[in-house]
């Protein structure tokens, strides 16, 4: 047992001291901090420049004012009134009338001149639509992708359209009063009323997303490192010295445990980064404005996430170690770990694509299959509904498979580390196992 901890300590110390660990950790901490602070940083820039109000020109023809029908000039006026009636800090458009003559070609060149002179940022052109009896609008400006202005104009036009229909103020009010619709997730099976509100659901989806991602990244990254460590030991032949000093089982699981602590340390650093950043008052406000409160996360999800993170890690790690032991050269490693990567990727994708349908049959079935259950069980407990016995059963299946695959991996490892040359086939491996009496 002391050998086991010696290996664990050695692996841990060397990884944590390594450049790769320090650099990736620092970079990720910086990125995380930046992402969380981004809303606040953006708001800072906005605050200084004030609200950026787009000036939109339209043709105002004197003679049109006198007509009784709805003319482009009239609509432009209504729009101008509408935007001016909005509170100044949320106003994003202002309409600028340009005196025109009524001649389409001449007016257009007038408007273009207005853009060139900087009087307006763009202009709106209205053409009658026979089918609806109203006008279609085209927003023309020198910038590309002015989606937000077009949207703003559309909602403005929707409002002023009612002017053309001649509705009373009371009718308009009724028409525009927003209808409150909210959704709540309930558990139909238990009949409990402990449903989750939309906000909680949102936080949980975010959290499930984060856990899935973390699990996937962690399994991939640490798995690769474990496999390459084993291969390096094998190719540098230090393995021959090692296996005469320490039993393969201790050396394999010591390494896995060492890497596990490295992974945990890394995750702890990231979580601490997130928690500290989120709790900076400026960020708290910014997130609060977006209706995100981390207290909404359900504790069940965190516990299940942790349990399946642990079991998932050990299941994959033992297999990565076994694969690493079969390869003699680091160059061949990428190809050899491919099946494991795909397996992990499969579980990850099932989880990701089922975020909105957490109770589908696929998710239910895969939440009991060892290599996928870390992903899908987290998903079910986070956003779907799941019974405690189901989580328990899935965990037991995981533990049994860890035992089985751990045993198998240890055997492969014991044989693999002595086999040099090309990667052995399954048949050759079995032959070697028999020959070595393992």
């Amino acid at each position, binding site marked *: 047992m002391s050998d086991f901890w010696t290996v664990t300590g050695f692996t841990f110390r060397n990884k944590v001291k390594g450049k790769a660990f320090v650099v990736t950790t620092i970079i990720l901490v910086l990125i995380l901090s930046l992402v969380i602070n981004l809303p606040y940083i953006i708001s800072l820039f906005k605050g200084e420049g004030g609200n950026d109000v787009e000036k939109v020109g339209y043709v105002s023809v004197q003679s049109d004012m006198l007509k009784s029908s709805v003319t482009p000039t009239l609509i432009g006026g209504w729009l101008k009134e509408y935007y001016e009636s909005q509170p100044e800090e949320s106003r994003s458009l202002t309409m600028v009338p340009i005196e025109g003559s009524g001649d389409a070609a001449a007016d257009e060149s007038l408007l273009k001149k207005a853009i060139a002179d900087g009087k307006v940022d763009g202009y709106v052109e209205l053409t009658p639509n026979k089918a609806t009896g109203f006008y279609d609008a085209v927003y023309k400006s020198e910038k590309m992708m002015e989606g937000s202005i077009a949207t703003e104009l559309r909602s403005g036009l929707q409002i002023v359209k009612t002017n053309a229909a001649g509705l009373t103020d009371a009718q308009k009010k009724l028409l525009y009063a927003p209808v409150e619709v909210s959704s709540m997730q309930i558990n139909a099976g238990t009949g409990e009323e402990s449903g989750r509100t939309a906000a909680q659901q949102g936080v949980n989806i975010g959290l499930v997303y984060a856990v899935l991602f973390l699990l996937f990244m962690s399994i991939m990254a640490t798995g690769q490192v474990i496999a390459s460590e084993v291969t390096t*030991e094998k190719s540098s032949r230090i393995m021959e*010295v*090692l296996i005469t000093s320490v039993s393969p089982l201790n050396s394999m699981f010591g390494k896995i445990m060492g890497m596990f602590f490295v992974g945990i340390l890394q995750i702890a650093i990231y979580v601490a980064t997130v928690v500290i950043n989120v709790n900076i008052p400026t960020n708290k406000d910014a997130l609060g404005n977006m209706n995100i409160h981390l207290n909404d996360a359900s504790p069940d999800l965190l516990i299940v996430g942790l349990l399946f993170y642990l079991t998932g890690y050990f299941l994959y790690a033992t297999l990565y170690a076994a694969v690493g032991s079969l390869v003699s050269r680091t160059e061949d490693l990428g190809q050899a770990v491919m099946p494991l990567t795909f397996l992990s990727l499969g579980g990850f994708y099932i989880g990701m694509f089922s975020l909105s349908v957490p109770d589908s049959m696929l998710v239910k079935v895969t939440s009991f299959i060892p290599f996928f259950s870390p992903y899908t069980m987290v998903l079910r407990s986070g956003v779907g509904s799941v019974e405690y016995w189901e989580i328990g059963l899935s965990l037991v299946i995981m533990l049994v498979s860890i035992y089985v695959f751990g045993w198998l991996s240890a055997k492969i490892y014991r044989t693999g580390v002595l086999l040099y040359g090309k990667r052995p086939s399954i048949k050759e491996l079995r032959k070697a196992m028999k020959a*070595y*009496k393992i």
Partner: protein
Amino acid sequence: MKPLVVEKVVKQYGDHTAVNGISLEIDRGEIYGLLGANGAGKTTTMRMVLGLIFPDEGKILYDGKPYSKEQLRQIGYLPEERGLYPKVAVSEQLTYLARLKGMSAADADKSLKSWLERFGVPEYYSKRVEELSKGNQQKIQFIATIIHKPQLLILDEAFSGLDPVNVELLKSTVKELRDNGSTILFSTHRMEHVEELCRNITILHRSNEVLKGSLKEIKSRFPRERVRLAAEGEIKGLESLPGVLGVKVLEQGGYEIRIADEASGRGILHHAMSQAEVSRFEIMEPTLNEIFIKTVGERHE
């Protein structure tokens, strides 16, 4: 009770027999030479002694007891292909390896420092292995093998890749370990090292023992077939003497004469003395090199 007894071990890999009934015994304070061409079964034999693989037949006893975890700690192994962690400091990996052998970290550190001092490279203590030259890595690997004061040493090509000065340094260390009572199984292709160090040897060829015994006894088994002759002047007519198979004129002066049997030597000496003043005459013992080539080479055909 001999520290290491290997009794008729057999190892088969599928249809191929890698080791076929090899036996050997090593005493305390003895260096035993295990020789053989490439692929003769040396590595498999050593791996079995190390307990990495188990023999199909026969047994291996350490101090009269079968293989156990405790025995493992008493073994120091220097593999043929050297291996250390390239990116880890010397002090760190050597204490790691020593601790795996059951040494305390403090003892390991002390032992390491004294060995580095002994090999005249104390400055390597905190260097990474990849920073060292190949020969110096070799020294570090050697220290890694003996740092935990093993009773049984298994050295596979211990001196390859070293300059003559360092070979002498390591050789004297090996001798010292032997004199302190270590049991050493030694494998090499350098026959002069074997002649200098080993008392008993086994030559393996294609998984079988072909020659075994004490070096002296083996040598006496092979006929003396070479005569070294040096004289003040030129000696003519050596080729025509009875029992002479061939004559080679040596660059540094003198002759090397191959003879059919030892008795022909007398005739050569008489012949030479009648022509010039003889400064050297010796009927040479066969070298191990010759014996090896003879034994292994002949069976090759």
